């Protein structure tokens, strides 16, 4: 098996001509994934942006076998395909699910949980654009605190809920591999995809994917936001590998939150005290993360 890296990516394109908005982070991740896994891979996409922009009759923007799953059934369809491939004795077909944050954290959560429990060899990629973008930017449970969507105002009346921690949910199933990645760090993402491909069992990747239309940022800000969300500490790059959590990038000090928040219209209503609250929440998350890392690396089982 050839190692996946930026240098080894083939020239072949398997996701061209889709109808996504300019600068779409999700479609960039899907394009990398298909380039890396090649034409043998089978991909399952639930209702959401990627199915809306990829499969417009009579057009088929994907160059691999792909099917649309019901919104709540990505995990179930994935384990079905994986079971058939196992029964037929095929070993060279990666089975990949590519769902948005709504289809993963809200609607498809029970199905994902079932798929992780069945231990079939699947790769589940959640591209997180932090709201239901396809239907018009409604709040999902992966929307960060303080972000404006069409169903949650920003400012002092902002919705109090914070982002659902999908990595911990996946890790709690005791699966072999789960990781977070960002569109701003392609080398890191491709390394994690390579690792996920070699795992015999389910793996879960949670990838940060900016949406210029929904977030009110410039179309060319996608990759820059993908980097600043990591340097500000709001999106830790993590890797859960056989019971151990590793923090891939642990900054000594965080970049000011404004570098991430200011280019986006969805955070424009935030007031100074709310930004401070966001920073405090981030610091608490990191304390918990570091404790989790110590706890798993020093464990007697490790």
């Amino acid at each position: 098996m050839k190692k996946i890296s930026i240098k080894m990516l083939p020239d072949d394109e398997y996701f061209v001509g889709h109808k996504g908005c300019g600068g779409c982070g999700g479609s960039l991740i899907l394009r990398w994934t298909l380039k890396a896994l090649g034409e043998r891979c089978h991909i399952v996409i639930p209702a959401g942006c990627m199915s809306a922009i990829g499969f417009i009759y009579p057009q088929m923007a994907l160059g691999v076998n792909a099917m649309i799953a019901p919104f709540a059934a990505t995990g179930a369809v994935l384990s079905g395909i994986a079971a058939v491939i196992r029964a037929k004795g095929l070993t060279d077909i990666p089975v990949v699910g590519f769902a948005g944050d709504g289809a993963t954290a809200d609607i498809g959560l029970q199905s994902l949980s079932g798929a992780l429990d069945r231990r079939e060899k699947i790769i589940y990629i959640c591209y997180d654009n932090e709201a239901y973008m396809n239907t018009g930017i409604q709040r999902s449970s992966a929307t960060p605190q303080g972000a404006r969507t069409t169903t949650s105002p920003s400012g002092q009346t902002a919705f109090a809920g914070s982002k659902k921690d999908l990595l911990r949910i996946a890790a709690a199933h005791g699966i072999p591999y789960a990781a977070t990645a960002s569109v701003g760090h392609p080398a890191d993402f491709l390394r994690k995809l390579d690792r996920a491909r070699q795992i015999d069992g389910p793996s879960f990747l949670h990838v940060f994917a900016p949406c210029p239309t929904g977030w009110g940022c410039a179309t060319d800000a996608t990759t820059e936001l993908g980097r600043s969300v990591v340097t500000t500490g709001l999106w830790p790059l993590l890797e859960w590998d056989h019971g151990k959590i590793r923090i891939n990038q642990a900054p000594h000090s965080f970049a000011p939150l404004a570098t991430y928040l200011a280019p986006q219209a969805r955070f424009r209503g935030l007031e100074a005290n709310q930004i401070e609250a966001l920073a405090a929440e981030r610091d608490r998350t990191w304390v918990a993360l570091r404790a989790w890392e110590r706890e798993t690396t020093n464990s007697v089982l490790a």
Partner: protein
Amino acid sequence: MKKPEEVSNPPCHLRPFKRSTSLAIWPNSPQADSGHLAFSNKDWRNMWPQIEWQACNSCSLCLLFCPEGAISWNANRLPIVQEDWCKGCGLCARECPKNLIAMIPQTHR
């Protein structure tokens, strides 16, 4: 590495057909033919990436960061933008480490 012309059925390329007239000329189902592209995205953009080739060292970052897969190599391994798929988002211009890509208005091309 296989070149597009060596592949009998290359993935994802434009196969335009006349819309409207009669249902009979529409393909039976999109999944019968993966990578079947009927319509170009040409009309989507209002900016166009103009690449300065002289100083380009073919680092391939513009190819990597194009969400459309619209940039490919020419025979001299220099990046060319495909008219049909570029949406003018400007990510290639932002990511070029040498700032060789200028986004110019589509009307001034």
